[in-house]
Structure formats: structure tokens, C-alpha cells
């Protein structure tokens, strides 16, 4: 029978199956960070358990890390949490990229960058944006701390098989429209709970045409529509990206791996539990106006009127969101003035994101009332960007150029919004207080964020002139 990619990866990882019980599935790669792991290690110690596969476990420090050139953790509770991870990794024999490591960065940037993330794997992390790794044709999903402990102790998880959901993206992407706009458009259409209980596989010509970094942006936000995971079938783009990375298979092993990975894509005629087809020829750059990622619209649109809501419950949610965001119905999105701009996060802080933003910024100045910052997703991304001169483009324009970390995506480090501040952010969540209590977040692409920093308000980047980059320019 024709199988979906989810079928294949799932069946390949079933350790035990009994009637009336969720499957016991094997986990190939367990990524760990400081915020969701201390209680799991404590549980291991209390029960006298050892980590079953330390060599399949990899840790990073990212959420609490300050983004200053020399990170000094002044918050004593944050420091205790980071020190706990360092001590736990020593005690249990786990490889850690700590704050001093030249390769450190956001866990979902580092995994792919180091070649840890590979097609066909099962990958978990105590972090909902683990869905990012699905871009490689892996089954990757976020788990809670109890499950982190379960994986540490057993290298397995009990899981009910999710439904398969094909989201087919058809049509050619218009100029100025990025992977971020595609996924925001999809979430707007399917709603923030529209993919609950499913693993989304993104297919279609528009997805095939995306680079690996763009596919990661799309898969990253799968969780924002409630999906357990998002995935893209591996192809030549995937294999080229993985090849030569530190933890990727080498030589003949790589050839064998590619042969195995090439069998992963869904068979012709495979039946998904659900299918949606979305065309993107007419998609405009997207901007969120509310307090979850489904409250989103084209930059050419206006803040919606709650009286237009289909249900009373939806009207109430819109009224609450607009009150929190300090927005009046009918206001053109382009007229919304900004205080802050954040280019960063596991969604949009890879090299291509920074190149694109730099093209919108080069030779211009950040608006006087805007404070703008760029936080690369990893130290490798930062150094690569600096080698291309991107840091100078940003700093000459008035951006702050920071070191790697989760930073203002969730404000666990010192980078936060003050109450009432309005921010154009390339991150993934515009929940109330996400970037700082009372802060107002608008989610956009790196291109939109960069242009907004210059203009001081949102602009339609389809009309924004992009500069070439010095020396090694980009082709996108």
C-alpha cells in the first residue's frame, strides 16, 4: 500500500506496539536546553537513573543567554538555571554548547547547522518550535519536561499516532513575499487550532522551490496552527545542505544515507487523512494585528472591525486583542507607527534572513523614533554574516548588532519590550506579554521588519527597492 512519509518514519521507529496502548517509539535525537530540562534531570537523579543514550543527546544554552558581546548573566535565577544545565551535562555525560562555545546558538538553528538534524529521524526537544527540524523530512516535535525525562531515561516515548495532513502550496511566490509570509498566510487561513492532532506535510511546487532555510521557517511555525509537527520531503536541496556538516554522515556513509533518505518521500497515491490546497500567486506580505499568529492579514489591509466577526466568541477575542494592541478598527496596517524592531529567533535568524534584511537596509537609516536590533540565530551565523559585511550594513543604518540567543522572541534574557511599546518582530508568537509585559508584537518577515525599521511604520516591501550586497551577493 502507498505510504505517506509520516507512515514510513513512524513505522521505522516503533519499538513496541500493543492493542489499546500508544506506540512506544524510538527517538534518534534529543535536543536539550536550560529552561525545560532541570526538573527532568532532577527526576533522573531522584530515581537513580542514567541517561540511556548520552551520545544521541545534545544540549545548548540559548533562552536565558544575554546577547551582549561578552555575555554576563546578571539575573541570579537565570544563572542558576544555566549552571544547572552545565552541571547536569557533566554529570550525565551530555555534549553541551555552553555560552562560551563558538558554535552556540538557538537550539533549532544549531541542530541543522551542525548536521545533527537529518532526514528520517525522530527528533524531540522540550520546546514547541522543534517542528523546525521537520524541514529535513524528519519527524520532529516539542515535548514537556516529564517527556524529556522519559526520553533521557529510555530514549523512547509513548505516542499516539497523529493524523497526516497534506498542506499543498501551489503557485509561484510573488517578489517580496517570503517563507514567513507563506506560513503566516497558511495559519491565517487554517486558524491557530486548525491543524490540531495532525502532522502537516507541506508539499507543492512553491515548497519544492524553497531553500532549506526557508523550509525551516515554514516548519517552525507549524505549531502555531496546533500541528504536532510540520515536515517537508527531503530532496537534492536537503542533501546538499546536510552534506559536509560536522555530524553528517561522511563518504560512503553519506551515499548510503542519501539512498535511504531518498525512499522517505510519500509514495505516489499515498492517502493523507486531510488535504488543503493553498495558492500563493496573490499572497501579499503579511502582518499580524492581534494577539495570536492567526490574527493576521496583508500589509495592504486594515485592522479588522470586531463587528465583522462570524461568532460572538470571535468578536470578544478580537475586541480583547485590539484593546491590548492599542489599535482602532479600520486603521491601515501601513499607518501603524513602531517603537522597536527585532530581527531574530529560531524562525528567522539564519544567514539568508539576515542577507535579505540587509538588502532592505543598505544605505538607509533607521527611523529616529525606532530602536532596532539584529540577533543572529547562532554564533556561526553571526560570524558568517560579519564575513560578508552584513554587520556593518546594519550598524551603519543604526541597528544594534548582537550575539546569538533566543533574545526578544520571548524575553527571558534582558532584551524585552517596555509596556506599550510596539515591535515589528520576525519571531513566531505575538501573544500578550510575549516580548515583555504590555509589549505589542506584530509578526512579519525579515524583509518587512527591516523596511519597517527604516520607514518607522509598516510598508509594502513589494514596492521597496532592495540594494545589492557587497562582494558575495545573494541570488534570491
Amino acid at each position, binding site marked *: 500500500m502507498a505510504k505517506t512519509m509520516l507512515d514510513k518514519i513512524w513505522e521505522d521507529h516503533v*519499538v513496541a506496539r500493543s492493542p489499546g496502548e500508544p506506540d512506544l517509539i524510538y527517538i534518534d535525537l534529543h535536543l536539550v536546553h536550560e529552561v525545560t530540562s532541570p*526538573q527532568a534531570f532532577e527526576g533522573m537523579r531522584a530515581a537513580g537513573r542514567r541517561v540511556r543514550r548520552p551520545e544521541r543527546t545534545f544540549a545548548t544554552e540559548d533562552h536565558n543567554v544575554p546577547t551582549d558581546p561578552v555575555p554576563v548573566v546578571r539575573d541570579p535565577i537565570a544563572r542558576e538555571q544555566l549552571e544547572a544545565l552545565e552541571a547536569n551535562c557533566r554529570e550525565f555525560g551530555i555534549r553541551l554548547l555552553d555560552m562560551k562555545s563558538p558554535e552556540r546558538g538557538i537550539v533549532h538553528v544549531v541542530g541543522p547547522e551542525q548536521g545533527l538534524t537529518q532526514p528520517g529521524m525522530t527528533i524531540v526537544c522540550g520546546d514547541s518550535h522543534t517542528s523546525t527540524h521537520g524541514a529535513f523530512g524528519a519527524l520532529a516535535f516539542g515535548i514537556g519536561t516529564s517527556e524529556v525525562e522519559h526520553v533521557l531515561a529510555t530514549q523512547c516515548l509513548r505516542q499516539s499516532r497523529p493524523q497526516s495532513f497534506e498542506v499543498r502550496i501551489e503557485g509561484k511566490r510573488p517578489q517580496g513575499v517570503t517563507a514567513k509570509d507563506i506560513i503566516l498566510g497558511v495559519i491565517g487561513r487554517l486558524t491557530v487550532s486548525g491543524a490540531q492532532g495532525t502532522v502537516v506535510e507541506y508539499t507543492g511546487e512553491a515548497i519544492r522551490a524553497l531553500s532549506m532555510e526557508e523550509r525551516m521557517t515554514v516548519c517552525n511555525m507549524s505549531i502555531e496552527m496546533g500541528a504536532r509537527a510540520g515536515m517537508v520531503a527531503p530532496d537534492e536541496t536537503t542533501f546538499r545542505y546536510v552534506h559536509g556538516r560536522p*555530524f*553528517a554522515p561522511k563518504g560512503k556513509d553519506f551515499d548510503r544515507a542519501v539512498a535511504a533518505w531518498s525512499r522517505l518521500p510519500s509514495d505516489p497515491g499515498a492517502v493523507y487523512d486531510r488535504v488543503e490546497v493553498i495558492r500563493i500567486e496573490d499572497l501579499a506580505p503579511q502582518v499580524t494585528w492581534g494577539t*495570536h499568529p492567526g490574527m493576521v492579514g496583508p500589509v495592504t489591509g486594515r485592522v479588522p472591525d470586531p463587528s465583522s466577526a462570524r461568532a460572538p466568541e470571535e468578536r470578544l477575542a478580537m475586541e480583547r486583542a485590539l484593546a491590548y494592541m492599542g489599535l482602532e478598527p479600520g486603521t491601515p496596517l501601513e499607518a501603524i507607527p513602531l517603537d522597536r524592531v527585532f530581527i531574530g529567533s529560531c524562525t528567522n535568524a539564519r544567514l539568508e534572513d539576515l542577507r535579505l534584511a540587509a538588502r532592505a537596509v543598505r544605505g538607509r537609516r533607521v527611523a529616529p523614533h525606532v530602536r532596532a536590533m539584529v540577533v543572529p540565530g547562532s554564533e556561526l551565523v553571526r560570524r558568517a554574516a560579519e564575513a560578508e559585511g552584513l554587520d556593518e550594513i546594519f550598524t551603519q543604518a543604526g541597528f544594534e548588532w548582537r550575539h546569538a540567543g533566543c533574545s526578544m522572541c520571548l524575553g*527571558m534574557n534582558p532584551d524585552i519590550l517596555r509596556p506599550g511599546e510596539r515591535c515589528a518582530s520576525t519571531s513566531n*508568537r505575538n501573544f500578550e506579554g510575549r516580548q515583555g*509585559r504590555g509589549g505589542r508584537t506584530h509578526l512579519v518577515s525579515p524583509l518587512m521588519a527591516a523596511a519597517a525599521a527604516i520607514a518607522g511604520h509598516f510598508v509594502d516591501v513589494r514596492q521597496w527597492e532592495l540594494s545589492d550586497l557587497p562582494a558575495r551577493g545573494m541570488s534570491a
Partner: protein
Amino acid sequence: MTPLTVHRGRVFPLDRADVDTDQIIPKQFLKRIQRTGFGQFLFYDWRFEPDGREREFPLNEPRYREATILLARRNFGCGSSREHAPWALLDYGFRVLVAPSFADIFYNNCFQNGILPVVLPEATLDDLFVRASGPEPLTLEVDLPAQVIRGAGEPIPFEIDEFRKDALIRGLDEIGRTLHASDLIDAYEKTRCQDFLAPVH
């Protein structure tokens, strides 16, 4: 884990859809390295002003303060995977959550902590919200073995996965259960075809 069989308690109606885990417990409280003590931070930004004074929020009303059953709208617990959210709910005193749907990771996390998330149809919840929002607090009895909720008119039946139900009733440690299958895990690792996976250190 404390077993859960029949739970009787007062109901707190939280009439909002898509409540994310950032609201259930804001990020500034995620830096602690213990599992306990998070109840004081539950719904913090909704319950308290930045200076710690109480805000106008239903959970601060005397009739709901002692609640142990939470009514919510669809997609409760969406967003971040933080298990601090169920820890905060449990530490505050909630043992049962009732909603038309829950976000997947949050739903799993509840079972890991002895919290029962019950899924009921929207219409049934509409009725429960009306009953729980009156001047007199509503008390319900949630009978997990019988899979029924009593105390709001006709008993309300609910569905739940047998495996999870059994674990909740017996207060089972899921890790201990999986470790019983160690020989199967050993066997799986031996036969694993993807032996080109390099160790990560």
C-alpha cells in the same frame, strides 16, 4: 503522581478561546529549577498588576478562588511546550480541566502530572459556562472510572483513552512502565538499520 479517581470541586469558568501557555504562566517565572511552587504565578499578568496588587480577574473573585475544576474554551494551552503551565495549574489546586479542545503538547503534559483534561462538545460547555457564571458557585463531581460528570443536570459522559485513564487512576510513573520494556528497546537498537547515525560526541 497523585492518583485521580473521583474528583469533586468548585468550577472556575475562564471564558476565553486560544488561551496560550504564556498566559497560564509568563516567561519570567520559568527560570526556577523545581517542579513546585508555580501556583502563585498562575495567570500572573491577568491576576496581578506589575506591582503585585490584584487586578479585576474572575479567579480573584471569592466565589472562584477555591476552584479545582477549570472550564475553558477551544485550544486551551496552545503555544509553548512549557510544562510549567500544568505545574502552575496543579500547584494552584486544579485537578480537572474541561474544554472543547486542548493543544496537543499541553494535553500530554496534563496526564504526566495527574491532571485530567476532559474534552466536551461546545454546546455542553456553553451550558456549563452559564451554570458556573451565576452568583452561586457550581460544584461538579468528575468520576473518571465511570467517565461521567455529575452536578449539572443530566450526567455528562466523556471519552478518554483507556491507557491514560488507567495511568491517572493508578497514579503510574510512565518511565517505570517503559523501563519494563527495556529488552524491546535493546532489541530495537540492535536491529536498527540506520547505523550510519554518528554519535553526537
